[in-house]
């Protein structure tokens, strides 16, 4: 090996990316060439000096200038939502999105007698943070935090399957309860995700009125499957689905073993949700059946969530309904 080759290969040698044959040849040359040995030493020394260059800090007023330029309101401390997302970025997105899908599945599956009702309105799939100060607009999936429970209990199948991997961490994770809020306007069609100021005021007024009538559900421990089954036996959800059922739906709350639909003055538990989780791919698949005329709108909204894979082509409809599979995925590029 010549000296010129050594200079080219020095970095690969330091990186350890030279194959064994070249390493041997490289070292043989170095043993007999003081210049190249010095060059190697110099390259190593320079690497060390480069790696030890101190970091710079942004000026003290840097942050405030960025916020000023971008018109970002100054938030004094980390929000609960993003803090938790930061720590547990696998579970929350999967859980929230899965809860959305499971909720949709429950509502849209014909087995529950809702197909007829949902031929007109459809749920809106927008995500926003839960906040007591936030206006209660229609069509929201909100994520609520309840420090008293562990996350491991909150998302039924997904969490159960993931529990083995996370048992030690689960106790530290705050519980998140995903609530799918559905509401409809007077004409029976779904309200816009970006409601007008008037609509928002009306919704807020309606919510306030409803609050006086609805006994706010206590945040109970998630139901066990057995308990949920028992409740099902007492009050099967398919029995009393009246024509105005959907218009009265206040919210859907997922819990282990089933789905809880909250109505004014009434709570209905539904067992069973479709789907399965692919642990290898960190995905969760859920079957959704939806009226054909609502497919495009729903897919458009779900696509924006970023954590869902929706069908690339429109599946064919059968008897006015489209069945498709949604895949909830962890950010594919995350490491």
């Amino acid at each position, binding site marked *: 090996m010549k000296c010129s080759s050594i200079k080219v290969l020095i970095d690969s040698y330091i990186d350890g990316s030279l194959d064994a044959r070249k390493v041997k040849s490289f070292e043989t040359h170095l043993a007999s060439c003081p210049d190249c040995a010095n060059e190697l030493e110099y390259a190593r020394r320079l690497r060390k000096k480069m790696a030890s260059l101190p970091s710079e*800090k942004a000026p003290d007023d840097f942050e405030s200038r960025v916020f000023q330029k971008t018109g*970002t309101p100054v*938030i004094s401390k980390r929000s609960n939502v993003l803090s938790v997302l*930061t720590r547990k970025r696998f579970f929350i997105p999967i859980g929230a999105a899965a809860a959305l899908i499971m909720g949709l599945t429950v509502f849209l599956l014909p087995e529950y007698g809702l197909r007829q009702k949902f031929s007109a309105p459809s749920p809106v799939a927008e995500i926003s*943070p839960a906040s007591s100060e936030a206006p209660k607009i229609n069509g929201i999936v909100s994520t609520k935090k309840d420090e008293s429970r562990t996350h491991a209990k909150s998302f039924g199948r997904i969490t159960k399957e993931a529990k083995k991997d996370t048992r030690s961490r689960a106790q530290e994770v705050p519980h998140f309860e995903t609530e799918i809020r559905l509401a409809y306007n007077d004409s029976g069609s779904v309200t816009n995700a970006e409601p007008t100021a008037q609509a928002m005021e009306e919704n807020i007024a309606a919510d306030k009125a409803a609050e006086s009538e609805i006994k706010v559900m206590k945040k109970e421990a998630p139901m066990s499957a057995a308990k949920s089954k028992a409740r099902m036996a007492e009050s099967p959800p398919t029995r009393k689905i009246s024509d105005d059922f959907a218009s009265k739906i206040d919210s859907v709350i997922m819990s282990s073993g089933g789905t809880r639909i909250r109505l004014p003055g009434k709570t209905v538990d539904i067992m069973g949700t479709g789907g399965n989780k692919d642990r290898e791919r960190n995905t969760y698949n859920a079957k959704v059946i939806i009226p054909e005329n609502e497919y495009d709108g729903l897919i458009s909204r779900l696509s924006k*969530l970023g954590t869902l894979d929706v069908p690339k082509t429109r599946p064919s409809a059968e008897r006015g309904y489209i069945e498709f599979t949604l895949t909830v995925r962890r950010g594919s590029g*995350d490491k």
Partner: protein
Amino acid sequence: MTRVKRSEAPTSQIRTEGKTGGARINDTAFTEIVRDYKDRIFSLAYRVLGDHDEADECAQEIFIRIHGSLSTFRGESALSTWIYRVAYNVSIDFARKKKRAGSHEDHGNGDCPPDLPDMRANPETIALRNEEIRTIMDALAKIDPDQRGLIIMFDIEGKDYEEIRAITGLAMGTVKSRIARGRMKLRELLRGTL
């Protein structure tokens, strides 16, 4: 060389739908991104540009770009990768403009060329090998911006080839060859000085 991976925060879940709650999450996410990344981004810009004021201007521009395009982030790569991609591209653009403007050749006076590190940086920087740092930064500033950015990420910030490939979108072979050429040039520039 020991490489320490920085934490991946915040998460890839940046939700931006709607004008109410979504906007609030976006603001919150952006706030956390600025707080988590401002020093790292500023440091990258400073190392690429070698000037405190230019780094400040560049880093501000980086965060403005991030703010403007946060809604397009779809979680297809790690958030940190996406942020660094914006930072790298903007920093290199600044460096190219600076190179075109010929500021490298216009040192003004020999004692304090304008593209050398501004020593208004933190006191630690000043205390530790002041002259040595100036020498390295000076040599770095003479390397082609494309090679410079990659060397900074690999040799100074401790990123590996795969991370750099993901950030820059370059082919792995291109990343390796640019780093190798840049290092050889850097060694030549610094020979006899360190």
